[in-house]
C-alpha cells in the first residue's frame, strides 16, 4: 500500500488540525492534502508517476511535506538531497538521483541551475508565496496512486544510499508512534534534516499517520546560506 494513503485519511478525520508548523507559518492537514494533490497533479502532467524518480532539495520547511507527499501520491520515488546552496555538492548528487525533475527551495536556485546545466534535469522552485501561482491550473490528483509495500518510496541521493519502501516507511512510522505514545494532540519537534529518510519516517510520516503536528525548527533554514 502507498504510504501516502495516511495523509488523505488524516485530512478527512482532522482537516483543521495543524500538520506542520514553522514559526507563524501553519499548515493544516486539509491544506497539506490539497497541496500534495496538486503537486502530484503537476508530476502527472509532466509524465512522472509510478516508480519515476523525483529529486527534492528542500530544507525543513512546510513545503517539504507538501512536495514529499505530492511525490509519493503520484507513485514516484522521492530522492532527497541536502538543501545546500553549493553546486559542487549538488551536481554529483543530482546526477546520482536519476531524476528528470528536481523540486528545490528558491534560495538554492542559482546553485541548482549551475548543477543542472546540461544534465537534462528540469527544475521547479518553491517560494512560499508563489506556490499558489505555480500550482494554479494544475488538476489535483485526488486519489493516491496504488503502490506495493515493497515498492521504493524514498531514498537519499548519493552513492550507497539505501532505497526505502512504502512498507518500511509505514513500519518505522508505527514504531515511532508506539515509542513516543503519539496521538492526535501530539507535537513532534523536528530537528533532524528531513532529507534523511529516517527523519521522514520517524518524524514526518509518524506525525501524519497519528494526526499529530510536526514543529519545525525556526533556525535559518539553510545550512551554509550565509
Amino acid at each position, binding site marked *: 500500500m502507498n504510504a501516502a494513503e495516511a495523509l488523505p485519511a488524516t485530512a478527512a478525520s482532522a482537516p*483543521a488540525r495543524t500538520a506542520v508548523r514553522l514559526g507563524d507559518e501553519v499548515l493544516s492537514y*486539509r491544506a497539506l492534502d490539497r497541496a500534495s494533490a496538486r503537486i502530484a497533479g503537476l508530476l502527472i502532467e509532466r509524465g512522472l508517476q509510478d516508480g519515476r524518480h523525483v529529486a527534492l532539495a528542500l530544507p525543513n520547511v512546510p513545503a517539504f511535506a507538501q512536495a514529499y507527499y505530492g511525490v509519493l501520491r503520484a507513485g514516484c520515488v522521492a530522492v532527497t538531497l541536502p538543501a545546500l546552496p553549493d553546486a559542487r555538492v549538488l551536481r554529483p548528487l543530482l546526477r546520482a538521483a536519476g531524476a528528470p525533475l528536481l523540486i528545490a527551495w*528558491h*534560495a538554492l536556485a542559482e546553485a541548482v541551475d549551475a548543477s543542472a546545466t546540461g544534465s537534462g534535469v528540469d527544475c521547479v*522552485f518553491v517560494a512560499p508565496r*508563489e506556490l499558489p*501561482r505555480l500550482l494554479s491550473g494544475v488538476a489535483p490528483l485526488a486519489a493516491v496512486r496504488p503502490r506495493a509495500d515493497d515498492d521504493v518510496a524514498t531514498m537519499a541521493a548519493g552513492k550507497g544510499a539505501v532505497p526505502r519502501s512504502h512498507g518500511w516507511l509505514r513500519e518505522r512510522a508505527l514504531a515511532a508512534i508506539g515509542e513516543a505514545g503519539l496521538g492526535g494532540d501530539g507535537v513532534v519537534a523536528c530537528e533532524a534534516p528531513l532529507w534523511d529518510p529516517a527523519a521522514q519516517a520517524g518524524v514526518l510520516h509518524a506525525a501524519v499517520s497519528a494526526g499529530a503536528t510536526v514543529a519545525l525548527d525556526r533556525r*535559518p533554514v539553510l545550512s551554509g546560506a550565509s
Partner: protein
Amino acid sequence: MVSEAVAAVPDRRAVAAERSRILLTLLADVDRLAERGVAAIRAEIPAYAAQDDERFGADVLDQVARNYRTDLTAILEEHEVTLEDIAFVRSAAMRRARSGLALEDYIVAFRVGHSVLWDAVVEAAGETSAGHEAALSLATPLMRYDNFASSHAAHAYVEFQQYAIADADRERRDLLEHLLAGELPSEGPLLAAARAFGLGAERRMLVAVAVGAGQTPDADARVAASAAIARTGLDQARTLVVVRQAEIVAVPALGVGAGAEQVCALVEDLQARLAAQGTPLALGISTVAEGVGELPRAYAEARAALECVDEGGGVAALPRFSSFHYLALRADATAHRLTSPRVRAFLDEDRERGGVLTATIRAFADADLNLRAAADALQIHPNTAQYRVRRIEERTGLCLRRVSDLFELLVAIALDDARIPGALR
C-alpha cells in the same frame, strides 16, 4: 372466607359518596393545592426555578389551579373534557414558547403537577376501604386528563414555535431586501427588527456573502451555515443573517469593540470551524458601509470579493486589501493587455519555474528597495539578491530602482495574482 370477602367489598354507593367527597374536598382547597403543585414544579425543574419573573410565577400558579379545577370538575360532573374546556392551556403554551422555556420542561411540569394532584387524592381518601376504592376509581380519569391536556399543550407550543420561526424568517428576508436596496424601513416591525440587529440609518456596517465551496451544498447545509453565522455574534448585537437563494448574506453592524478587523477575524474562525465540520464556505466581506445608503455598494463588493477565494473555500476580506490589490482585482481585459508583452512573458516563464524572481521583486518592494533587507527576508546572500535583480532587469528591460519601473512590475504581478484564486490575499 367468602362472607368476609363480600363484607370487605365496600358498598358502591359508599364509594361514589367517597369519590364525590374527595373531589369536593380538593376543589374547595384547589388554590392551596395549586401552590403545592407549583412548589413541586420549581423544586424538580431547574428551568422553572430559574425564572424570577413574578408574572411568570403568577401565570404558572394560575395555570396549575385552572388545570386542577377543570380536571376535578369534569370528573365530578362526569363529562368528557373538550378542547374548549382547556382553551387556557393553548395561550399558556404560546407564552412558554415565547419565554424560551424548553418544551421538555413544559411537559414535565404537567407530569409533576399531576403527581401532586394524585398525592392529594390519596391523602384525601383517608383510611377507609371505600375511600381507597374511590381513589382508585379516580386514577384513570386523572391520567386521561393529564395526557389530553399535556398533548394539547405540546401541540400548541410546537405550532407557535414554527409560526414564530417562519415569521421571523420572513421578517429577516424582508428587512434584508430593504437594506440591499439602500433603505431602512421607516416604521413598523421591520424597523424594530433592524434595531434589534443593531442596524441604523447612519450605522457603520459590513456585508458578508457566503456560498458553498467544493461540492454543491444542499439547502439544509446553507441553513445550518446561516445559523452558525448568526450564532457567532459578529458584533455585539444579534447579526442579521439570511439564506438568499444559493447564498447567505450577513450584515454585521460595527461599533465599539467590533471593528472591521475583528469581524473579519471572527468570520475567518467561523469559516475554518465550518470547514472542519464538513461545510466549507467561500466568504466575501465588503469594505465598511457608512450607513444604510451604502449597503447596495457593499453587497456588490462582497460578491466581487468571492472571486478571489480558492475553490476549496476561504475568506476574501476587502477591509484587509489595499486599494492597489483591489484595483488589480477589478481590472478588466484592457488592463491586462496594457502590461508589456516582455514583462508578461517574463512573469509567465518565472511562474512556470516557481516564481523565484517574482518573489525577489516582492521582497525588494516590501523592503523599501533595501536589497540587503530583501536578501535577509528571502534567506539568501546579498550577492545572490544582487544577481537576481540584474537578471530581472535584463529580462524585463526595467530598472528595479526606478520607482515607475518597479511600479510597472508590481502592477503586472498584481494583475497576474488576480487571475489566480488564492494568490491575491
